[in-house]
C-alpha cells in the first residue's frame, strides 16, 4: 500500500475531508462549447468570505485544495487567495486556461509554492482549439503560458478533453505535452451542465471511437491492462465505496454551496449559512452518500464490472438515482472490455454520453 493510500484510508477512518475542490468563480474568458457551467456571476464569495472558509477547511484537516472555476485568475484577488491558502500550508492545485498567465504570474505562482497547474488544451491545431474555446489566439496564448510556467520549474498537466471535434488530435496533444515537458491527462468525457441541460452531450465521441481511443497505447498506456476483462466480484467490492465524493472529498461553489463533488450536484449545505465542519459532519445529504456501498446498488451490484467500473455516483444522480448506474460509465466499461454491463443487459439507458474516467500518463 502506498503512503497516499494509507493517508486516504486514515482520512476515511477519521472522517477527514482530505481534498476540497473550490471554484472561485464561474466567470470565464473562454466559451468552451462543452462547458458544464453558466458563467454569470450570481454573487461570488468575497475574498474575506473565502479566507474565512480556508481557515475552516484547514481546521477541518483539508490538505489538498484545488482552486478552479470558471477561470479563477479572472478574480483580481486570486493571487491574494492563493497566498492565503499557501500560508495555511494547503497543497494547492490550480486549474486554469492560462490565458492570463505571463512571466510575472508564472513567477508569482512559483514563489507561492503552487504544487501543480492543470491547463486545458483541446488540440495542437489553433483552428480546432480556438473553435472549441471560441477565442481566437487562445491556443498560442495558452502554450506561451505553459512555457512560462515550465521556465519557473512548475509542474503542469495538460488536460485533453476529447470530443467529436478534436477526436483525431489526442496523440498530437500528448506529443505536445512531451515536447513541453508536462504531464498529460486524457478525458473522453462530456458531462451535462450543472443546471441539468444535456444539450452539450451531442459533442461526445461515439462508442466505436471510444473503443479505438481505449486501444491506443499512446493514449492509455498498457492496452492489455487497461482493457482487461473484470475479475470475479468479491465481498470487498460489495462492501466497497463508490468513490471519495462525500467521504474524503467535496466541492464548494463560488456561492458557498457544498456538494459531494464537482460532478455530483446534490446540494448539501452552504458555508454562508453554516460552518463548513457542521455541514461536513451533519449534512443529511452527505450522510446518505456515505451510506452507500456496492451491495446497495440495485443494478450495479449484479454487474461483472462492479469492481473495475469507473461508475460516477454524481452522474448516476444526474440520471435520476445516485444508487443507479451511470450509463456513460457503462459505456466505458463496455468500450474497454467488450463485455456488456448489467444495465445494458437490462435494457437501461446507454446513450447519455456521460462519463468521468480520466487516464493519467506521466
Amino acid at each position: 500500500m502506498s503512503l497516499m493510500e494509507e493517508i486516504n484510508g486514515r482520512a476515511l477512518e477519521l472522517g477527514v475531508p482530505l481534498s476540497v475542490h473550490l471554484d472561485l468563480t464561474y466567470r470565464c474568458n473562454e466559451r468552451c462549447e462543452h462547458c458544464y457551467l453558466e458563467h454569470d456571476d450570481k454573487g461570488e464569495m468575497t475574498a474575506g468570505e473565502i479566507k474565512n472558509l480556508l481557515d475552516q477547511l484547514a481546521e477541518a484537516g483539508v490538505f489538498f485544495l484545488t482552486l478552479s472555476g470558471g477561470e479563477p485568475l479572472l478574480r483580481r484577488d486570486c493571487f491574494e487567495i492563493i497566498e492565503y491558502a499557501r500560508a495555511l500550508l494547503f497543497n494547492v492545485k490550480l486549474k486554469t486556461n492560462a490565458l492570463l498567465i505571463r512571466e510575472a504570474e508564472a513567477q508569482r505562482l512559483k514563489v507561492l509554492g503552487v504544487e501543480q497547474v492543470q491547463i486545458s488544451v483541446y488540440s495542437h491545431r489553433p483552428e480546432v482549439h480556438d473553435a472549441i474555446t471560441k477565442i481566437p489566439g487562445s491556443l498560442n496564448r495558452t502554450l506561451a503560458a505553459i512555457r512560462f510556467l515550465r521556465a519557473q520549474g512548475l509542474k503542469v498537466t495538460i488536460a485533453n478533453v476529447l470530443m467529436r471535434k478534436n477526436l483525431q488530435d489526442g496523440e498530437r496533444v500528448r506529443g505536445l505535452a512531451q515536447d513541453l515537458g508536462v504531464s498529460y491527462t486524457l478525458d473522453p468525457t462530456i458531462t451535462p451542465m450543472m443546471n441539468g441541460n444535456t444539450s452539450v452531450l451531442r459533442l461526445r465521441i461515439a462508442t466505436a471511437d471510444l473503443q479505438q481511443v481505449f486501444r491506443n497505447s499512446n493514449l492509455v498506456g498498457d492496452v492489455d491492462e487497461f482493457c482487461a476483462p473484470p475479475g470475479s466480484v468479491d465481498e470487498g467490492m460489495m462492501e466497497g465505496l463508490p468513490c471519495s465524493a462525500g467521504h474524503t472529498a467535496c466541492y464548494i461553489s463560488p456561492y458557498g454551496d457544498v456538494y459531494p463533488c464537482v460532478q455530483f450536484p446534490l446540494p448539501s449545505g452552504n458555508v454562508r449559512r453554516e460552518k463548513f465542519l457542521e455541514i461536513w459532519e451533519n449534512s443529511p445529504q452527505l450522510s446518505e452518500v456515505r451510506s452507500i456501498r456496492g451491495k446497495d446498488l440495485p443494478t450495479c451490484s449484479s454487474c461483472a464490472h462492479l469492481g473495475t467500473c469507473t461508475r460516477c455516483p454524481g452522474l448516476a444522480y444526474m440520471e435520476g438515482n445516485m444508487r443507479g448506474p451511470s450509463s456513460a460509465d457503462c459505456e466505458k466499461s463496455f468500450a474497454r472490455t467488450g463485455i456488456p454491463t448489467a444495465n445494458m443487459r437490462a435494457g437501461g439507458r446507454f446513450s447519455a454520453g456521460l462519463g468521468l474516467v480520466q487516464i493519467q500518463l506521466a
Partner: protein
Amino acid sequence: MSERYLLRSTAIAARVMGGEMIIMSAKDSTLFTLNGVAMLIWQAADGRTALSEIVKNKVCAEFDVDGDTAYRDAVEFTEALAQHGILQISDGPIPEPPAPPRAAP
C-alpha cells in the same frame, strides 16, 4: 560536536491528521508522515533553537526516551527531511526568509 540549527521550509504543504503530520515537499513532491516526536521537532524548527535544545527541552520532556539516542535519531531524521527541502540545516542560527512579494495588481 558542532550545533545544528533547523528552519522549517515554507515551500511545503502540511496538515495534522489523527496525531500525525502529513507533509509534501514542494521540491520533489515527496509525501511524508511525521509521528509525534518528529512533528515536535519540525514544529520547533524556528531557525533560532539548536537541535540539542529541542531534543532536551521538547522531546525528552514529553517522551520517555534517552537523550543521546533521541539526538542521534533526530540528526538522522532531520537530514532526511533536509534532502527533500522540508528543513534547512545550518551550524549557526538561520534568519527567517522575507515574506514573499505581494500579488501583482
